[in-house]
């Protein structure tokens, strides 16, 4: 299997959720390496549940989650992370009691020891602000800085797939566009597969290659992002603009 194909993520007819009624009812999504796939939909549609199923927190009752040709379904979260799927959860997930450097070091632990120093330098080069704040407790960072930290930390693990859950949540508009630019840059420079869950459908579709719309646990639309952005009926019905 080619290196690129190894990073393809194929979610195949996944049924999952909490308790008796499944939140996801047979969801299939394909996210290819080097692309941004935006998952959209209203609150409660199942977007976060989807990410939590892919990252291993929730065990699907049916379906497969293929990273390349490996089925991740049912594996524990730490094993899924080690396999190369890195989830940046909603609400940022910075470990506030650790310093910036320690947060990054935690991510770097998934790389071979010899590569860590170089990778850290690269991160500080790309994210200058983190370099400035490297010895400060992560809890002292602003919202936008924290978002940068969690993305940098996820990148530190050298992932194949990056799952981003609402990266723009609670951030000022200017900061949001900075974050989205960063995500687009990541796609362009590395062969990453990026899956982006966003409430803010407009901005998400602006940088995504593919758009998936979820409603009540099922996929109701799957198309190139530009097409979705043009489809007025769909936009108004499911995405609210």
């Amino acid at each position: 299997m080619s290196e690129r194909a190894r990073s393809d993520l194929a979610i195949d007819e996944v049924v999952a959720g909490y308790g008796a009624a499944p939140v996801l009812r047979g969801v299939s999504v394909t996210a290819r390496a080097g692309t941004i796939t935006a998952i959209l939909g209203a609150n409660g549609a199942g977007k976060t549940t989807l990410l939590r199923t892919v990252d291993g927190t929730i065990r699907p009752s049916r379906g497969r989650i293929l990273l390349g040709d490996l089925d991740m379904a049912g594996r524990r979260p730490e094993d899924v992370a080690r396999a190369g799927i890195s989830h940046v959860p909603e609400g940022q997930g910075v470990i506030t009691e650790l310093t910036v450097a320690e947060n990054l070091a935690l991510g770097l632990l998934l790389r071979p020891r010899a590569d860590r120093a170089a990778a850290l330098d690269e991160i500080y080069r790309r994210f200058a602000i983190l370099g400035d704040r490297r010895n400060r407790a992560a809890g002292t960072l602003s919202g936008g800085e924290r978002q940068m930290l969690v993305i940098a930390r996820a990148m530190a693990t050298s992932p194949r797939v990056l799952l981003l859950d609402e990266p723009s949540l609670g951030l000022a508009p200017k900061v949001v566009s900075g974050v989205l630019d960063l995500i687009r840059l990541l796609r362009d420079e590395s062969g990453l597969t990026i899956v982006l869950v966003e409430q803010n459908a407009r901005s998400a579709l602006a940088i995504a290659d593919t758009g998936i719309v979820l409603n009540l646990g099922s996929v109701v639309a799957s198309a190139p992002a530009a097409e979705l952005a043009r489809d007025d009926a769909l936009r108004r019905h499911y995405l609210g603009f």
Partner: protein
Amino acid sequence: MVEFLEFTLEGLSAGMIYAAIALSLVLIWRGTRVLNYAQGALAMFTSYIALEVIDRTGSYWLGFVVAIAAGLVIGAVVERTVIRPVANKPPLNAVIVTIGLLIGVEGLAGVLFTSNNRSFPPAFSITGLSIGSVALGITRNDIFTAVAVLAAAGLIAVVFQYTSVGLRLRATAFNARVARLLGVRVGRMLTLGWALAGLLGALAGMLVTPSTFLNPNSMDGIFVLGFTAAVIGGLESPVGAVAGGLILGVVLSYAAGYLGGEVVNLFGLAALMLVLMLRPSGLFSAAPARRV
């Protein structure tokens, strides 16, 4: 004045033991949010194991090493078998499980080693030291106690602060969910935390038991005071645990020295309630934000 010095040194020495117990409780609490009511009983058990080794081989230090190793292993086994299933249940379940462990281990010691008092050899001489004709009130064994506890605490601190394993341990303690997403094997870290706590407990047992007899209940009182020290220091803070232990040891030593030994527990209660009424989460804790 000499008395004051004597009481202070005695208090610091006893305080070291409380600090070790307190530190082991804090380790476990931070990692797994469980209060191990059996911590003292497990220390008693490893001391019995050491005594069996010492009796059979005549070597104190072999017994010492075996006790420490047993503490590590037993701590890990307990976490994996009995604590893991209740870690995500309501906190009361873990309380009952560790109390059940306390009772069961004490009973087991009674069955295996009988419940009679047995004398326990100290590591070093327990004759009082003096400078000139001034009795200092402490012994060589007390000095060893202080050194051993500080060394163990220091070693653990270094591991936590400066190694990769330590980083993973801290990440697990602060935010297990996020740590998992970064590939940290959280389960193993929890087991490791309990193993380290078991090491500290076993050490405390080895150090304190020579001055009492060894029987299945001999660590009960010490455990309660160690627990009190941990609560005084604040369960979230390892530094608080050590400080709480030393403070408590010294305060109780003054109380026993000037007012008689029977008031020790009363003073412990008074000290605890005083601290908790002023700071409900212990001296060294950050005031918790009220979740609304």
